[in-house]
């Protein structure tokens, strides 16, 4: 196909022909074309099918407001649905496909929906698919879902990368049309740091689409010169292809920059960048969007906005057709006729809804005043139009202008509410604008070129003065105030055929009338009932006409009806851009333990614990599954000695004269009585009396404690301690620092642990049971002078220590401990064996301290001191939390020892029905105990401490399992605790 609609002129580069593919056809365009202009140039009017009725649709606009020409770009993992052809820059090899048809674009099988349209009006789904109720899930919904939607996802991981960035400026100028350029020039010349952002790939806005002159130059030339001047300034950053999509608090704006979308091969560079722009002030110069007039069959390919028709001819050198009629309610439509005629396009008719029209002679055009277009004829493209006076005019394109709407969107992102201006028949910015934002040019209702230039300069100057800049003298260039008279004319009442308001969601005038009849009269209800304005274009071309029609039906004025609220984003932003680099394993940061490298070399498999990766077990040759490894690690530790990296537990260094008093406040038990050189287990409560966290705290000196927290709560506990220190007891002399990362810490557990450590700790330190008993702590040195801290604490219940060295020695320390332990058959163990041994000992962890349980529940009720003040103390004594029959942490074992217990199973008395009314508690943790040879569990059960030996049922409906279990002590191994004191 040749470029039959290509005409002279325009800003495309005719030296550079570009080949692209639309569906199965290879076509040609020029550098500087959009996909839309190139398709039009090739006479490809039919571009897609509509959402609901599968009506043939073509290019309707020339900008980001496009409702119709949505196409799928590229293929494979880079396939992207629902892109607007009007925003897609043409490049060599571009592959686009049309959307939303079953079968070919030309012969869509679902076009049958169009014939069913009498049944498919607003609310159809709500009314029709209500009964029989059971049909919804199995029948209606799958059918509707498969028929609905526009483009298709590739279902492959996105092959592109996305980035995020942060920029700061004095003045952000949004939009690089005449007023935006003028604002940026004024600010740039005054020395302010300026960011000028525009969604187009070519700056200049409507200047590139009009034949209007600025300062004696053509619009595009003046824009080019302005951009060149701005580019020469170090204090100005130009961001084309950048959509400012949201106005946020305190001068922060969100922007999406498309970096490689216009390049065939992005060479691995980020495809798009999501910017956070910090501005002291902003000038919104977002321009205006033309709106259509609704009349019968106004959605056929070939019908387009008059301003878009001007864009295609003036900027791209493309005519929408060979015979182009113009239908307008305002003066602006006439310029489309003028510009097209000047390019040699035949204009058979100008139809103006008004009585009095501009006194302009258009060669070859018949002028119809006080007349409207009532209907169009044609199937996949308009062939003729029918006027209200009955006249039928053959055309292959129709340019429609219903006036212009200022782009007020960003002014509404906070509390701004647009105000109606009768003279413009449009809403302009109103109410409270985002702080620091001024609006200039067409976005502010200054729709003429001269006014836009002047306002861009003036608004920038006001902002600059406020910021303390001396405003450099800038003359506002000369330009005309082109005629802009407009009539309030929204739809053609005489039309009997369906007249589209929202093209993307297939909402017609009739739907709006129906909504009003059925009582959906609030604009917010209208929107949701008809789905008007809820498509990806957010109703940019349809909202105002829809409101006006509703107002007319309801006998109100447009401002009385009001608008729905514009929210970010202004145009769609891909989820990938919001995600940025945070995907896959980088979804969130993860941390490696100091001995990670050693563990990798020794066959560890890793598990995520909080944001850490920890060794869960170390597989040895011959082991067939994880249980083999875990059983061996737990058993060998109890028989000899095991080594585990426990660095991930939070460590908080607490110093100061009031350190002891401070700890008494934040722990439920007392720490001021702890002797120097000793460790104590501590329990923390929330202020509501529920258990929060636990750990051991060592008194290293009179005014120096080292606290440990659970891995999961390390950050939260530190935050709480800072809160207590700064907000609750602000006069205490106490200071905190997190040393979690500073010290690598290892548990060395088992009967041979002392023997092993004796080989590592320098000889002058006496670690005999007498000199360094259970719960002792102190400073030692290892390996000939490396500073270390030694704690005699035990999570496994064995004779055990934890030894800490500066983190940089962590990997070596792990190696040294294992080498020194070789003669004792020492074994590295992971989190699973650690878990098995703690369950064997009945120690509570996150499963038990789950935010629902009290100190009494976990058997530590006596640890809540009543003699001193602490966080949570008062509310922990609420009657419900200290009742005698409260749930208690107990051990459980299956009566049939061969059975496996299930965590989450609920307990029931033997003959009670399995319902919540008879619930006795639940199993929190289970493990296979290699030392006992059967499964064991921990759990909470009502009055558990008085029920040892009782058999209850453990029921898990989720797993379909019920079994008898015996209530036993939670201390399965060494209940008297003799080993750890040995």
């Amino acid at each position, binding site marked *: 196909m040749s470029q039959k609609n290509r005409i002279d002129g325009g800003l495309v580069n005719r030296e550079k022909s570009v080949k692209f593919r639309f569906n199965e056809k290879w076509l040609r365009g020029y550098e500087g074309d959009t996909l839309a202009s190139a398709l039009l140039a090739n006479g490809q009017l039919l571009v897609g099918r509509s959402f609901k009725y599968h009506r043939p649709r073509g290019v309707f606009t020339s900008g980001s407001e496009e409702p119709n020409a949505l196409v799928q770009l590229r293929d494979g993992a880079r396939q992207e649905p629902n892109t607007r052809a009007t925003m897609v820059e043409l490049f060599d090899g571009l592959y686009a496909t049309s959307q939303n048809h079953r079968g070919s674009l030309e012969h869509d099988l679902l076009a049958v929906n169009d014939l069913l349209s009498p049944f498919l009006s607003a609310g159809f789904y709500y009314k029709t698919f209500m009964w029989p109720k059971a049909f919804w899930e199995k029948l209606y919904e799958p059918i509707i879902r498969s028929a609905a939607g526009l483009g298709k996802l590739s279902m492959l991981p996105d092959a592109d990368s996305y980035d995020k960035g942060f920029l700061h400026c004095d003045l952000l100028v949004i939009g690089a049309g005449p007023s935006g350029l003028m604002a940026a020039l004024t600010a740039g010349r005054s020395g302010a740091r300026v960011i000028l952002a525009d969604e187009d790939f070519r700056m200049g806005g409507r200047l590139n689409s009009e034949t209007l002159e600025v300062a004696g130059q053509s619009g595009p030339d003046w824009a080019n010169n302005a951009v060149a001047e701005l580019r020469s300034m170090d204090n100005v950053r130009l961001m084309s292809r950048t959509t400012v999509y949201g106005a946020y608090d*305190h001068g922060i704006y969100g922007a999406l920059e498309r970096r490689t979308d216009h390049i065939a091969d992005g060479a691995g560079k980020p495809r798009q960048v999501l910017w956070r722009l910090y501005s002291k002030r902003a000038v919104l110069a977002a321009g205006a969007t033309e709106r259509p007039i609704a009349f019968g069959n106004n959605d056929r390919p070939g019908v387009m906005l008059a301003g878009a028709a001007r864009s295609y001819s003036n900027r791209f050198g493309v005519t929408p057709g060979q015979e182009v009629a113009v239908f307008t309610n305002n003066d602006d439509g006439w310029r489309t006729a003028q510009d097209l005629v000047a390019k040699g396009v035949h204009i058979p008719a100008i139809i103006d809804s008004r009585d009095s029209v501009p006194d302009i002679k258009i060669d070859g055009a018949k002028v119809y005043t006080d007349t409207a277009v009532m209907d169009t004829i044609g199937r996949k493209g308009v062939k003729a139009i029918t006027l209200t006076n009955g006249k039928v005019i053959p055309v292959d394109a129709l340019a429609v202008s219903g006036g212009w709407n200022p782009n007020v969107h960003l002014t509404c992102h906070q509390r701004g509410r647009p105000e109606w201006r009768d003279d413009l028949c449009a809403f302009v910015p109103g109410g409270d604008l985002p702080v620091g934002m001024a609006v200039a040019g067409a976005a502010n209702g200054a729709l003429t070129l001269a006014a836009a230039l002047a306002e861009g300069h003036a608004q920038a100057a006001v902002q600059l003065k406020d910021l303390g800049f001396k405003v450099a003298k800038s003359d506002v260039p000369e330009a005309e105030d082109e005629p802009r008279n407009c009539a309030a004319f929204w739809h053609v009442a005489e039309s009997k055929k369906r007249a589209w308001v929202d093209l993307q969601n297939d909402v017609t005038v009739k739907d709006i009338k129906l909504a009003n009849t059925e009582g959906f009269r609030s604009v917010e209800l209208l929107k949701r009932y008809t789905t008007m304005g809820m498509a990806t274009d957010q109703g940019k071309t349809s909202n105002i006409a829809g409101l006006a029609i509703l107002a007319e039906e309801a006998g109100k004025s447009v401002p009385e009806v009001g608008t729905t609220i514009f929210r970010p984003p202004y145009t769609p932003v891909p989820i990938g851009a919001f995600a940025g680099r945070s995907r896959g394993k980088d979804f969130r940061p993860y941390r490696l333990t100091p001995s990670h490298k050693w563990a990798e070399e020794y066959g560890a498999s890793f598990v995520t614990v909080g944001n850490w990766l920890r060794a869960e077990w170390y597989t040895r040759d011959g082991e067939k599954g994880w249980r083999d490894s875990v059983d061996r690690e737990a058993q060998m530790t109890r028989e000899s000695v095991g080594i585990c990296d426990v660095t991930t537990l939070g460590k908080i260094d607490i110093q100061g004269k009031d350190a002891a008093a401070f700890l008494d406040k934040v722990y439920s038990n007392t720490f001021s009585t702890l002797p120097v050189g000793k460790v104590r287990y501590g329990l923390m409560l929330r202020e509501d009396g529920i258990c929060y966290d636990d750990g051991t705290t060592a008194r290293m000196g009179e005014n120096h404690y080292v606290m440990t927290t659970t891995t999961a709560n390390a950050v939260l506990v530190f935050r709480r301690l800072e809160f207590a220190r*700064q907000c609750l*007891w602000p006069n205490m002399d106490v200071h905190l620092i997190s040393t979690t990362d500073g010290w690598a810490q290892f548990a060395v557990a088992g009967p041979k642990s002392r023997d092993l450590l004796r080989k590592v700790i320098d000889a002058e330190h006496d670690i005999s049971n007498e000199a360094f008993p259970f719960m002792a702590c102190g400073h030692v040195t290892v390996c000939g002078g490396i500073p270390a801290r030694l704690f005699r604490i035990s999570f496994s219940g064995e004779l055990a220590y934890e030894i800490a060295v500066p983190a940089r020695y962590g990997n070596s320390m792990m190696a040294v401990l294992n080498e020194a332990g070789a003669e004792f058959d020492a074994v590295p163990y992971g989190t699973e064996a650690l878990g098995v041994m703690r369950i064997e000992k009945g120690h509570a962890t996150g499963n038990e301290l789950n935010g629902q349980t009290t100190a009494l529940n976990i058997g530590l009720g006596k640890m809540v001191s009543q003699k001193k003040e602490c966080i949570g103390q008062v509310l922990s*004594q609420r009657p419900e939390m200290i009742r005698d029959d409260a749930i208690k942490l107990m051990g459980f074992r299956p009566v049939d020892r061969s059975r496996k217990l299930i965590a989450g199973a609920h307990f029931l008395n033997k003959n009670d029905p399995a319902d919540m009314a008879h619930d006795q508690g639940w199993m929190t943790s289970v493990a296979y105990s290699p030392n006992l040879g059967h499964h064991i569990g921990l759990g909470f059960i009502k009055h558990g401490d008085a029920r040892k030996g009782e058999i209850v049922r453990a029921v898990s409906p989720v797993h379909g399992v019920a079994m008898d279990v015996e209530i036993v002590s939670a201390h399965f191994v060494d209940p008297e605790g003799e080993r750890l004191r040995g």
Partner: protein
Amino acid sequence: MIINHPLLGPRDAAEFVYLGDASLIDRPDWQADDAMEQFHAYGYLRENPAGEHKELWYHEQGDRSWLVVTRNTLTHEITAVELARDVARARGRDK
């Protein structure tokens, strides 16, 4: 949002963690006769003003200061930022 930290100047809200009503500073006396009622109110009852609100923010990705930020909940305008420790002291909290 941007919070003008009294020590560090304007910082992005992303550096902070939000806690809530600054009345959490006013922790009741545990030995009061009606301590249980007071703590109940302290723990569970909050004003929810449409307008000026004093609230606690923690500069976790920064200097770890707790701040009392006076923010208008309707407009997000921030009219004052103080160190929570100063506020706590001014409200008479002691050891």
